[in-house]
């Protein structure tokens, strides 16, 4: 048995090193080279820049919106909210007091802002990543009256903007990318 172990040791060690070089170094570096060559935008995080060249976000990752002028994103449990270095869900269970307290506070705030019940679920629940870039169309539309008022736009115009930015897929739920929507809102002016 001892002889068996010694004879198995050489392949075990050599194969570990060879595979480490192939799979741990060559493969990821080769894929990085190919990715940078073929799909440079996506490979570098689908970043969006403004006219001055400053990075203002990624088209696939969500960011926080607090002001009344913008569509707000969902509650987030990533760090203090939309922290790109601390992705996380709330991990609160369905009958958790902490969950109910949080949702109750958000529901109350929505009611105070004039949004009628029942509220779309995604508006007051935290996503899995804490970086959800999207809202459901229904959740976006609850914010249309506020946006229209603050920006002096007509409500149908805001609703039409939401409709234009709604992406549908057979494989998932309809959704609106909030960053894209808010940029379009800025382009409308006011």
């Amino acid at each position, binding site marked *: 048995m001892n002889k068996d172990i010694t004879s198995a040791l050489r392949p075990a060690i050599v*194969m570990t090193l*060879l595979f480490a070089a192939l799979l*741990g170094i060559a493969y*990821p570096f080769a894929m990085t080279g190919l990715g940078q060559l073929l799909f440079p935008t996506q490979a570098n995080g689908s970043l969006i820049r403004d006219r001055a060249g400053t990075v203002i976000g990624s088209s696939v990752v969500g960011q*926080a919106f607090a002001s009344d002028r913008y569509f707000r994103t969902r509650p987030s449990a990533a760090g203090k909210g939309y922290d790109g270095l601390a*992705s*996380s*869900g709330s991990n*609160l269970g369905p*009958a958790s007091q902490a969950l109910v307290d949080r949702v109750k506070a958000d529901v109350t705030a929505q009611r105070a802002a004039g949004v009628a019940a029942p509220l779309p679920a995604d508006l007051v629940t935290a996503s899995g990543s804490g970086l959800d870039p999207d809202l459901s169309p229904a959740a976006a539309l609850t914010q249309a009256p506020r946006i229209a008022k603050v920006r002096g736009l007509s409500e149908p115009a805001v609703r039409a903007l939401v409709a234009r930015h709604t992406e549908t897929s057979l494989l998932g739920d309809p959704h609106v990318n909030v960053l894209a929507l808010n940029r379009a809102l800025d382009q409308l002016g006011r």
Partner: protein
Amino acid sequence: MTFAGWALILGFTAILLLLTKPVGAWLFALYEGRRTPLHLVLGPVERGFYKLAGIDPDAEQSWRRYALHMLLFNFVLMAFTYAVLRLQGVLPGNPQGLAGLSPHLAFNTAVSFTTNTNWQSYGGESTMSNLSQMLGLTIHNFLSAATGIALAFALFRGFARRSTATIGNFWADATRVTLYLLLPACILYTLFLIASGVPQTMAGVVDVTTLEGAKQSLLLGPVASQEAIKMLGTNGGGFFNANSAHPFENPTALTNLVQMLSIFVVGFGLTWTFGKAVGNTRQGWAILSAMVILFLAGVTVTYWQEAAGNPVLHGLGVAGGNMEGKEVRFGIAASALFSVVTTAASCGAVNAMHDSFTALGGMIPLFNMQLGEVVIGGVGAGIYGFLLFAILAVFVAGLMVGRTPEYVGKKIEAREVKLAVLAIAVLPLMILGLAALSSVLEQGLAGPLNKGPHGFSEILYAFTSAVANNGSAFAGLTANTPYYNGLLGVAMWVGRFFIIVPMLAIAGSLASKKYVPESAGSFPTTGPLWVGLLVGIVLILGGLTFLPSLALGPIADHLAMIRGQLS
């Protein structure tokens, strides 16, 4: 529940059924050691590896030698990763300047990735450098998967061969699977992911000034190359803490579908390979039928519960299904489906937080793992686990009708049944024992985030996930402590290798037997009766042991939820 949701679930299953034969046939070519078109490019690599390592790929191994080489390889791999993680602070490829891992976290992580579990006691973005992700973790995603498939091949040979002492060569099996299946598939898969928005760069953090002028930091890295094998090898360890819920890991509904397909595709294919290896593909389809029945039953419960939503939140004026912990671009159906797929297989990737599922919706992922992840299962591990149940099923059938148990031309005798029971008993002993221990010890009780029955579910889920080598979590549990890291590490090691060794012993024992042709006295192992028996055996032997623990966790949680009793 919606029509579109069911169309997704059934369409998903149909695509996999169509892929079963082509993938199974490719695997069969590797099982036989046949030449493939890829040998033209990768053949020299294969031969070069053997030469440098002093391996004769044609040298047949007994089950003991096969087990020894497999174990030693896995042990060296684990030590290698432990070293990489500990030394992270002084190694290159560390744009964030992260420190080395603590001994207990490095131990836990090294065991976790070696055993195809990919339990993560850490948050990827704040712990792992790019080099650690690639050199420490990605290699395991390939090699633990290759090990699993190699072991399945060894067991297939046990059934297929007659009166011989050997079951193949571990190095040849593992190397061929890596070079001619996993690596080329991952190259194409990675390119698809990058095109869809998954980053692939050696850079680190990008600073963002948001539309409102606030600061946000985004972490990039070699994500796509790791994501591909994370799914295809049923590993599940994410680059980021939020795993496949993170938009950089899983940016669209299409990547989500492809990720779910890639979790299952090798497992589906291997059932066909098994049938082909034992000379009757209907044997493979029978096994797959039983698996798909169990899978769809699980999806139905979870989808139903998640779509029904949380009555506590409905009481507050919130409409619709349960969206806590879910991403809008996937929605309820694609999240429920993903959770059942990832736990039916031993993947453990998540696109939604299972901890925040409704009580019964989250019980199905837990129960899937407790069955031993034999519903499709992990690559290789699923089919060898299921074949252990098949051995018990023919034994039980034999007892009921007074026939000699036979399976695919081999007599099943006391030795095989004892070994199968030994392997299957590891799960309840380890899961229930360690969960019970942690529910009374102070160090254990310090872990859960949630109180009440849901807190117990978090503990139970952690040990179930570790022993079953899944790696998903009720992530509220704070597991990065010496207590949990140590105990979960042991649980993962035992859950992997204490099943594998008896399984290989069965392979060796079967290989040495003569072929018994099917006779009028044989119990048919292809028709609906057999499929029904398999489903029953998996549920009764695999599941029944866990019902009391489920009553204390998810079921009590469900009753609290519908009564609005908060904790």
